[in-house]
């Protein structure tokens, strides 16, 4: 086990900058999730840590060791690929033992590690099978087994659950988290799925256009997103945004209605801002922002209501079961402390 430290990493593909000045410290035993839309540089960053990509500048340290120029095999890491990347000509046992065999580990140690890992992952009865005889979830387990057997300093996961169906994905998500809790190996996990990020991470790193947008524990990112991008990316259904202009202690929306700003917001009079409200923080009330119901979607536990208000499509998540029909006129409001305020030109948080 080891910490991972990234200092000023940058990389270009031709003229396109894919990583810009990445600084990140990952503590020993931490589970960090890199999340962002496709093309944001998260996979490139992971592959750079693995040594599969070269970086143009900066320092990568695993433990105390500078590994910028170390070959992937000398970095003492294990990686789980989106495609699983099992060796098709080897059975499960040989797949898992491959790295130890390369290191010429003693046969007893290999047998012991493989059986321990396969017991942990429920692969005991599949050891003689070839990858093509396994289901997607089983292949994924073998790929993790191959990583565990190594007992590496760091686990790297590159979108490992993307090829699984929704149900299996949530099961495996829980399994990986449980696995990390028992092994406590430092893990870096790349995904484009913010739910995976929220549920698994000790800390989330949100990336966009090769730049780190925000780093923090899941709920901190959810409650206090640093900018409009993070606010819109984290959370499902996504946050509602309204263009507004500050006016006294309120924000004046496009349709002339006003919402009271939170007390902590430092906003100059007449400044162009964007206010964000999460769907579960919007409530129906007698007065406030007038809206018209478009769609009502009962989910059982909650009801998702889509409305048109202030020229935007707005989503409201209600825990009670409102009796609504499309076309109904309703007013919306939110508590001031639940309102996020962002600068419209820089996108940065103002409260």
């Amino acid at each position, binding site marked *: 086990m080891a910490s991972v430290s990234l200092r000023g990493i940058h990389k270009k593909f031709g003229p396109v900058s894919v990583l810009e000045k990445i600084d990140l410290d990952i503590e020993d035993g931490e589970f960090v999730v890199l999340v962002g839309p496709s093309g944001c540089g998260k996979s490139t960053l992971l592959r750079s840590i693995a040594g*599969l990509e070269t970086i143009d500048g900066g320092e990568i340290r695993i433990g105390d060791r500078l590994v910028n120029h170390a070959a*992937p095999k000398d970095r003492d890491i294990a990686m789980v690929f989106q495609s699983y*990347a099992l*060796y*098709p000509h080897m059975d499960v046992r040989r797949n898992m033992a491959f790295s130890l065999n390369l290191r010429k580990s003693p046969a007893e140690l290999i047998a012991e590690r493989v059986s321990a890992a396969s017991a942990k992952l429920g692969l005991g009865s599949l050891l003689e099978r070839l990858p093509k005889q396994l289901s997607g979830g089983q*292949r994924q387990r073998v790929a993790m087994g191959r990583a565990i057997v190594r007992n590496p300093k760091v686990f790297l996961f590159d979108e490992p659950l993307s090829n699984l169906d929704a149900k299996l994905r949530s099961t495996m998500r829980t399994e990986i988290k449980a696995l990390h809790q028992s092994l406590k190996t430092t893990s870096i996990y790349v995904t484009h799925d913010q739910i995976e990020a929220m549920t698994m991470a000790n800390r989330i790193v949100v990336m966009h256009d090769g730049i780190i947008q925000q780093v923090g524990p899941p709920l901190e990112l959810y409650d206090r997103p640093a900018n409009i991008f993070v606010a819109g990316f984290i959370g499902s259904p996504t946050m509602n945004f309204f263009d507004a202009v500050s006016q006294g202690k309120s924000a004046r929306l496009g349709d002339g209605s006003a919402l009271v700003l939170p007390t902590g917001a430092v906003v100059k009079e007449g400044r162009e801002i964007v206010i964000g409200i999460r769907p579960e923080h919007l409530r129906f009330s007698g007065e406030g922002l007038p809206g018209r119901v478009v769609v009502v979607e009962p989910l059982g536990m909650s009801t998702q209501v889509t409305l048109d208000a202030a020229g935007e499509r707005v989503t409201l998540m209600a825990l009670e079961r409102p009796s609504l029909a499309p076309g109904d006129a309703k007013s919306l409001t939110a508590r001031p402390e639940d309102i996020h305020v962002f600068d419209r030109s820089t996108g940065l948080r103002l409260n």
Partner: protein
Amino acid sequence: MPGQSLFQRIAGQIGLYGAVACYVVFALLPIYWTIKISVTPQDLLYSEGIRLWPSRMTLANYASVLKASDFPRYFLNSIIVSVSTAFIVTVVASFAGYALSRFRFRGKALVSLVLLLTQTFPLVMVIPPIYRIMGQLGLTDNLYGLIIIYTAFNIAFATFLMQSFLDGVPKDLEEAAMIDGCTRLDALRRVILPLTLPGMGATVAFVFTAAWSELLFGLMLINSESQKTFSVGLLTFVGKFAVDWGQMMAASVLALIPVCLFFLFLQRYLVTGLTAGAVKG
């Protein structure tokens, strides 16, 4: 197929098998005819007219080819040339194909283009310069010269063939191997190579057959009896006044045997689907 009557289904099956049978007859008839003539006694060759099988059979043609001609020597020469060419070409093409498949390097597009261009010249056009060059190098009239020429002419196509097979092996596998403790060469040997065996088998088979049946360069570069390959040697059965059809056909049948054996041996490597289960899907 659903929605078809019994009659349509039967008619469809008959049509399918009929077409396949026609093709098989078309492809195999020359070989059958070769065998037939090789076992026809000399005196019946012209006297019986066109018959599917002669009224008497003889193996005399085979006996005289094997005992009274230089054919065993030609045969051995052909094996030396074809096996060496197939081996060298496959090794070189595997590495070249790997480079084209995996690396980005300066001039890559140019290399591909030049390789492709070499395939567009008519062979007859390059024979005179090649003859001159080989003559000055002292490589005419010997088997090394033939091996060099055959290797040169087969490498371009074989490289493209290997490149496409290597493109089919996911890059993730190699990267997984490199993280697991392989150098790039280790990964190539332990993971990529076993998965490209069908491709290499196909390449070996292709090059071997091409070298085995090549006539033009053999004819131009070889003079002495001891260096002739079998395809050149076949022409010795063409005399000034007559063609010894029986012996020529017997020699041809004998020349078919190693190719057939070779393909039987390679068949198990030519099965595809070895990469199934490697990645998703």
